[in-house]
């Protein structure tokens, strides 16, 4: 009877729940199990998705276009979460410049300020007369987004050519000679991390 009465005091109303007020002290070692993602401490990584592209994509256009394989969706667990977007895009060009940027739901999220007609981009690769055809550069892009939603979001890495008619490539050079030491095939990737606020 004594034990039952004590338990009834701790857990009143037959709720099965132990009120915070009835907890005097609890050793950390008694805490086991998993904290629900929605209750994760600020700064915790609560969700990660990633994609790596190892084959070749090319584009002959002045319009920013999604790179196939570098498009990724995430559904935030909490509307207060941040989304850390990290992308690495290896770009070769057949002339002039190549540009890259990140988008969320097709809208650019990490570009320079508007300045008249100037292209607004996150990264640029230049084609040099001496070795442009044999070069491929890897652009790293990072952006911390605050989407304020629990709806599914789609992030993408995009590229475009600086001028016509130059073709630009992801994961290879323009010349793409078949040698053992030059003009490698590369890999690109995009990673999304949901960070608890």
């Amino acid at each position, binding site marked *: 009877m004594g034990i039952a009465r004590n338990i009834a005091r701790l857990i009143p109303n037959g709720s099965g729940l132990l009120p915070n007020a009835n907890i005097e002290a609890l050793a950390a070692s008694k805490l086991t199990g998993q904290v629900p993602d929605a209750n994760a401490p600020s700064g915790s990584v609560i969700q990660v998705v990633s994609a790596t592209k190892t*084959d*070749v*994509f*090319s*584009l*002959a*256009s002045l*319009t920013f*276009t999604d790179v*196939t*394989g570098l498009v990724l969706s995430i559904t935030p667990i909490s509307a207060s979460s941040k989304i850390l977007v990290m992308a690495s895009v290896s770009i070769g060009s057949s002339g002039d410049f190549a540009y890259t940027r990140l988008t969320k739901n097709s809208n650019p999220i990490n570009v320079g300020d508007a300045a008249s007609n100037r292209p607004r981009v996150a990264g640029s690769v230049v084609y040099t007369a001496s070795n442009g*055809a*044999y070069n491929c550069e890897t652009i790293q892009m990072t952006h911390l987004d605050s989407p304020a939603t629990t709806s599914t979001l789609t992030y993408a890495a995009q590229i475009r050519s600086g001028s016509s008619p130059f*073709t630009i*490539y992801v994961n290879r050079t323009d*010349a*793409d*000679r078949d*040698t053992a030491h*030059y003009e490698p095939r590369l890999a690109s990737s995009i990673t999304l991390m949901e960070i608890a606020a």
Partner: protein
Amino acid sequence: MNHKAIYALYPQVVIVDDGEGAFDKDGNKVEIDLELVNAWVDPDTYKHQRAAEYPSFADQFDTLYHGGYDAWKAQIDAIKSKYPKP
């Protein structure tokens, strides 16, 4: 997949992806004749072959200094002749 051949043979193509194929500016898939693509000869091949064999600028200047213009020209001519322009 030979991207350069596809762009040369199918002018409407603006996107080529090894895994997904070729597409026009409206996102429509363009059917590719792989036999045609594989038979295509890159007209720029000679440029890349020459570029791979030209001496470095430093070596070319060295040849100019020690051997003069004729020696330098002979060196370059040999490479151009080895890989003639089509």
